[in-house]
């Protein structure tokens, strides 16, 4: 039993879109960042699918790099989020709009 690759790609595209929309509609910075993770993983799924379809190991290896980068982003991102919201408890991304124009 095999599922055609296009299903995986569609799922990945769907996940990617959900992530993007989530980033647009949510206000909690942490949740926004989780949406970015979702998008990255959608890209990973695409990589793996194509690697299988092309019978090429390169796409699968790329996933590791994306995961590492995602981890690094989490580290830095959490640091920044903590630094900002230490002074405002329960703040959302929308509370930071001092810079505009």
């Amino acid at each position, binding site marked *: 039993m095999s599922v055609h690759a296009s299903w995986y790609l569609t799922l990945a595209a769907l996940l990617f879109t959900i992530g993007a929309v989530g980033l647009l509609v949510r206000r909690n910075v942490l949740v926004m960042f989780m949406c970015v993770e979702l998008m990255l993983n959608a890209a990973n799924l695409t*990589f793996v699918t194509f690697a299988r379809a092309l019978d090429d190991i390169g796409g699968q290896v790329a996933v590791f790099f994306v995961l590492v980068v995602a981890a690094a982003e989490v580290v830095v991102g959490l640091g*920044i989020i903590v630094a900002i919201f230490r002074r405002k408890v329960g703040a959302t991304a929308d509370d930071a709009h001092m810079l505009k124009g």
Partner: protein
Amino acid sequence: MTGSTGVLGALAAHLLGAGGLVLPHLNYSTILPELILLGGMLVILAASALSPRPLPTEVYATATVGLGIASLIASLVLWRDVTSHGAFTAIARSIDVDGFAVFFLVVVSCILIVAPMFAAGYLRREGITGCEYYVLALISGSGAMFMASANDLILIFLGLEILSIPLYVLAGLDHRREASGEAAMKYFVLGAFSSAIFVYGIALTYGATGSTNLAEIGAFLSRNVITSNGVLLGGLALLLVGFAFKVAAVPFHMWTPDVYQGAPTPATGFMAAMAKAGGFAALLRVFVSTFPTLRTSWQPVVWVLAILTLVLGAVVAIVQNDVKRMLAYSSINHAGFVLLGLEAATARGIAGSLYYVFVYSLLVLGSFAVVAAVGGNGDADHDISRYRGLGRRRPVLAVGFAILLLAQAGAPFTTGFFSKFYVVEAAVAAHSYALAVIAMGSAGVAAFFYLRVVFVMFSDVGIAGASDVSRGGGEIARAGAVAAEVREQDATLLGGAGASAVATLVAPAYVAAPELAPEGTPSEPEVSVSPWVTTGLVLCVGATLVFGIWPQPLVDFAHQATLIF
């Protein structure tokens, strides 16, 4: 078993297939500049951690400048190799050593030589101790270098992240200031978002071409005539989004003004220079050398991006009263000019873009350094009114800033003139007349806001009656006179003469300057400039004038860089 998708593919293939582990040959000399930066960064970090008491910021700055010089030398050695032996790939074909890459290695090295000087003065004034700025700058620089020499989309992605993540932190370096944190948060969220889009673009491109290696993609595309593959074009579009975000092209620019304004000023200058260098390096390489067969598809998109970027950057900058934010918008305008060269997609266009990026890096670093100096403690206030009378209070600083601004406006006898000239000329040669005209128009609009700052600096009185031509003329004359006076003191003859000449030429432009708040702030802010900042400014202004009067060496450098692709 194909085992040929770059370093990783080869590695993994050998692991899985032959049973033995065969590492690719690592030719360290090809990534020596990057290694110097990263190794030096580790040493600085270790020294900072092991030192019993905090080291003064100048020590780190000196070390960083030294590393910049070392990587510059290493880059020039590579340049010699490339010019004598031609371009080659290394480390399982994931690294390109060609003129194009080395050009950007040189640009990044130069940024790393100048930027720490500006940072040292600022960090000392602000009382920010520690090695963070320098360490982050070095990491970021190595990321930009990887982007420039990468021959693999995955490596470009890694370079992009190595470049960007330190920039997020740099934006939030001054955590006592709320704006700095806000800038970091915005940059981070949007940056991560654009990275995700970029990765997805790589995935789609990989799926359509079967490789992430640029050379292999290029070979694949030349074997198979693909013009309307949705996956490939979609992937390409998303790649473009990632790059456009990094270089702040409209409509992916919206983070730029806020982040530039909120970040500590030397960090702003650094990120403006570095992110554009890295972003444009990868953008130009990927689109011009890897996807030339799809040019008919991407050229119109770049055309639109360039126009939007040129126009919006100039038009919104003109209504800013905050000089720092104005410069942020002006950097968007500059990105549009670099895109002109990409749109032309000719050797001349690319050479023009390279030249532009180099010139712009030094201009923007120097400009933000002056902004940092005038802005006062804690980046308190960057309103244009703070610049009033600067020509009298700090004539040398004001003339230096005037030269940098005039260069950004494209005044003759500065590098800015030739940089604009070459990209516009390339656009004309490529028959993109509309684009060339719009670019010239935006340069004209841009001249307003640069000159506005220049006039304010050299005027002592309020300029509420801004539409008074004769008054404006008087101020221009005074600007010239001050410039001339300073010229005699400092023998920066051509700068002063050029400045006054240009000011005279554009005298009527003055009428369009927005009215300033009437005079009412008699207390003039104290402006202090440390020797470090002075040294950096001398370098930036000197390069602007020297290569403005004698542009050919840099032009040749950029031109050769495009020949040895």
